[in-house]
């Protein structure tokens, strides 16, 4: 695994949001830290689109362990990347979701189309079709 790299453009500025990334071949692991709302969702969207379009990333693992807040703007970006990667033969996986964040995601129906894992290792080890059970 490559050394951890930080998106440093806006470290915790304004939206209290930070991302830490690890890339291995076509897999990107993104550790999210902070609030995922209409302000920070745009930062996440740009970062993911950059990795997908410029670096040919096809599997995205979003580690949500340090996400303190999510609303429909954040969920929309995740769903949007799921659709984009699906069209390219890739997938989005989600790991380490705190219970109060999972509740919001569950209400949105996201767990019906995206697979959730207990940790990054489980997410990476999984090689099945990305659709949830």
């Amino acid at each position, binding site marked *: 695994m490559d050394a951890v790299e930080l998106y440093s453009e806006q470290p915790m500025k*304004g939206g209290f949001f930070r991302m830490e990334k690890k890339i291995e071949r076509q897999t990107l692991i993104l550790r999210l830290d902070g609030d995922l709302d209409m*302000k920070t969702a745009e930062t996440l969207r740009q970062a993911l689109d950059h990795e997908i379009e410029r670096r040919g990333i096809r599997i995205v693992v979003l580690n949500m362990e340090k996400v303190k*807040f999510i609303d429909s703007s954040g969920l929309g970006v995740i769903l949007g990347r799921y659709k984009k990667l699906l069209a390219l033969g890739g997938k989005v996986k989600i790991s380490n979701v705190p219970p109060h964040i999972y509740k919001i995601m569950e209400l949105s129906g996201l767990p019906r189309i995206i697979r959730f894992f207990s940790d990054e290792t489980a997410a990476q080890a999984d090689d099945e079709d990305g659709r949830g059970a």
Partner: protein
Amino acid sequence: MNVNQLVLTFSSVAENVGIARMLVASVGAQLDLPLNDIEELKVAVSEAVSNAIIHGYRGESGRLVLLELEINQETLKITVSDEGCGIPNVEQAMQPAFSTDPERMGLGFVFMQSFMDELDVDSTVNQGTTVTMVKYLDRSTAFPSH
């Protein structure tokens, strides 16, 4: 009966969504609400304020959003108003999965409805939208109005 009111007016920019959430979380904490309820209030306010900025003002940053909180012994009433473009068909806009933007899930009103005890949307095209949300503070004595 004691009534406590707070009013916050802020520019229609994305960074203020987090400030609106912080205010409602502080009020929720002061009311000794369970953490889960505070999380839900934060989501509801975030959705209402995001809607005002994204849809009401179509992302235009120089406009104003009004957040009003009114607390009495039984309820916490939250009102979010804008003077933006308004919603032509409120009923349609409130349907799950209705969104004018493919990147969004159309979940804003679903979350507001799920997390609050009452939700009312009053909108006039080209004049603006007011979203009123009520949380009952003591569920043992409060009943839904319908």
